[in-house]
């Protein structure tokens, strides 16, 4: 996906951009509302991540202008201000959702997916591996004509594999991406989800191999 990140704190902007790039997203950074307007004029984005406090104005005013100009790009507001009233304000101004800093990227992704799903989705999100067509937005796998629903964690797990086909992913790495850091996770949790994913992949040429002592990898039979 292509993001426009409007955030005046350059350190945070750089971090967030790098983190999103890690998941294979393209990110343009704007540090002021003026830059954001320039970016929007030149390129199309799947999603705008908008900070509220910016040096040349309030993100909510920008949002209101954006909506008045009938731009359809969904907006997720990143708020660092006192949550209670800001949240309400942001949604009233036309944001699709908001997320409070600091945020869990898994949550950000979940919110992006939810927003895109609500907005009718972006067509380019379909991904293919072997004979499997994967739609992360709809959380489905199709093998031939057989459409299989994935639960959220199964979907996210498969997304990790599809993003790095053939690479060995350690249990810890998968755990870090799949579970929240403040959530107790049992040792065999990953095995459970890998087991389920294998069932969903049954009948396809995609395989999740166990590499003893190292982790798992996605291969094509």
């Amino acid at each position: 996906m292509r993001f426009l990140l409007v955030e005046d704190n350059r350190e945070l902007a750089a971090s967030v951009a790098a983190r999103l790039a890690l998941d294979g997203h393209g990110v343009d950074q704007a540090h002021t509302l003026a830059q954001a307007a320039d970016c929007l004029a030149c390129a199309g984005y799947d999603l705008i991540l908008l900070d509220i406090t910016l040096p040349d104005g309030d993100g909510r005013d920008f949002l209101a202008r954006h909506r008045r100009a009938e731009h359809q790009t969904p907006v997720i507001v990143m708020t660092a201000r006192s949550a209670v009233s800001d949240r309400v304000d942001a949604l009233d101004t036309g944001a699709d959702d908001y997320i409070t800093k600091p945020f869990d990227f898994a949550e950000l992704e979940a919110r992006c997916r939810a927003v895109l799903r609500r907005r009718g989705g972006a067509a380019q999100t379909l991904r293919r591996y072997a004979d499997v067509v994967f739609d992360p937005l709809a959380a489905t796998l199709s093998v031939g004509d057989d459409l299989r629903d994935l639960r959220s964690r199964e979907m996210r797990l498969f997304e990790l594999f599809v993003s790095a086909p053939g690479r060995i992913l350690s249990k810890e790495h998968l755990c870090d991406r799949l579970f929240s850091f403040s959530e107790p996770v049992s040792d065999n949790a990953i095995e459970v989800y890998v087991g389920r994913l294998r069932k969903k992949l049954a009948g396809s040429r995609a395989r999740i191999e166990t590499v003893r002592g190292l982790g798992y990898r996605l291969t094509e039979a």
Partner: protein
Amino acid sequence: MTARRAPSLRRRLVVQLLALAAVLAVLLFAAVRFSAERASEATLDAILGAATIAMAEEIRSAEGGAVIDLSPGTFSMLAAMGDERIFYRVNLGAATLTGYDDLPLPEAVPAALAPMFYSTPYRDTQVRIAAVSRSLRIDNRPATLLVLVGQTRAGQSAIAQGLANRAAAVGLVVFLLAVPLSLLAADNLLRPIARLAAAVGRRGPHDLRPVRAATPAELVPLVVALNSFIARLRGTLAQTETFIAEAAHHIRTPLAVMRTEAEMALHHSGDEATRARLRRLIRAVDDSARSAGQLLDHATVLYRADQQTPAEVELGALALALIERFRPTAEMKDMRLTLVPAAVALWVHGDAVLIEAALRNLIDNAIKYSPAETEVTLTLAAQAGQAVIRCRDHGRGVAGARLEALTSRFQRGPNVGDVAGSGLGLTIVSEAMAAMGGDFALDAAEGEGTCATLSLPLRAA
């Protein structure tokens, strides 16, 4: 500390009104007495004068002197004076013709037939004397005839005394009537002050609207001063809110950088010991972010409770928006969030931000403390004039902890395990509900899990 008390306005007012009433009563007494005496004296003088004139006219000159021939009319006039004693003296020139020759003469000779009146002590009593002069020709020489008729005024002074007594009684009655009237007047006059005090006193501890009660012009400066004080207080509180927002900004932005960097480092690090450290770091960041968030939310909720701007809120729409908001969060744990809407719109009178804060904390808790792939159900209903929201989860429950304990600040249940939390969530819920006259209950749900119930009075249809 009690302020030094200035004399009561009411007492001052009553004392002054009563003093005024007393002065008026005395004046009334004096005036009644004076005019009554005057009136009776004038009446008696008129009769005395008429009798004296009649007497003077009935004196005729005779050879070498004068003849007095008193007619019955004159006598009856004198007799009409009641039990008073009568003295008379008729002088022709310097000689006393008849009567009491020691009856005091007037200081000047009265003019013709216009009687001159004067009071003087005579013998052992006080007499009122009318003196009339008349010219006679006796033996062809002019002579001045002086007729004096004196009269005691015992009856009159008795009457005057009676009148004075009555006047005193009237004065007293006026004074006595003035007592309740002045009390009434004082109360009446002071009522606007009492009303203002009641209007201010009736306010809740957090009501900071300016005072708008109708006040008499004299109290306007007081109300203006009070309102400017309230405005200053509001200003201070508003600064507090701005401060809360700023504080949040300054805490959260670096935390966000820290968390993102730590996640990146975790991603790139292959060393398991370092990775464990980074995980702990991220957890700590999450904890502090959550605590900071809850503290600031709590402060905001307290501030909003102070500043409530109640509006009509429809709980159905609010709950639906929240459920949509939490759906991605629940989805991350493969949890299902279900909303069972009420059959009717649930309009309540309250602060949407407070209701949202309460409900958000409940749903957040329900998701946080439930295992993956369970269900959280939000049920809305109207029951006995109350809008009721039930949030039911299949989580770990509260292990019998009492609601009062769980809603105390920084208190957490005995079974929270390693789930991150600040111990403020339920405090926020109960404070928000209390601020709006609502109710919050937490029960063990049938089977397993918890059922949290919020109720708010439905707006009267």
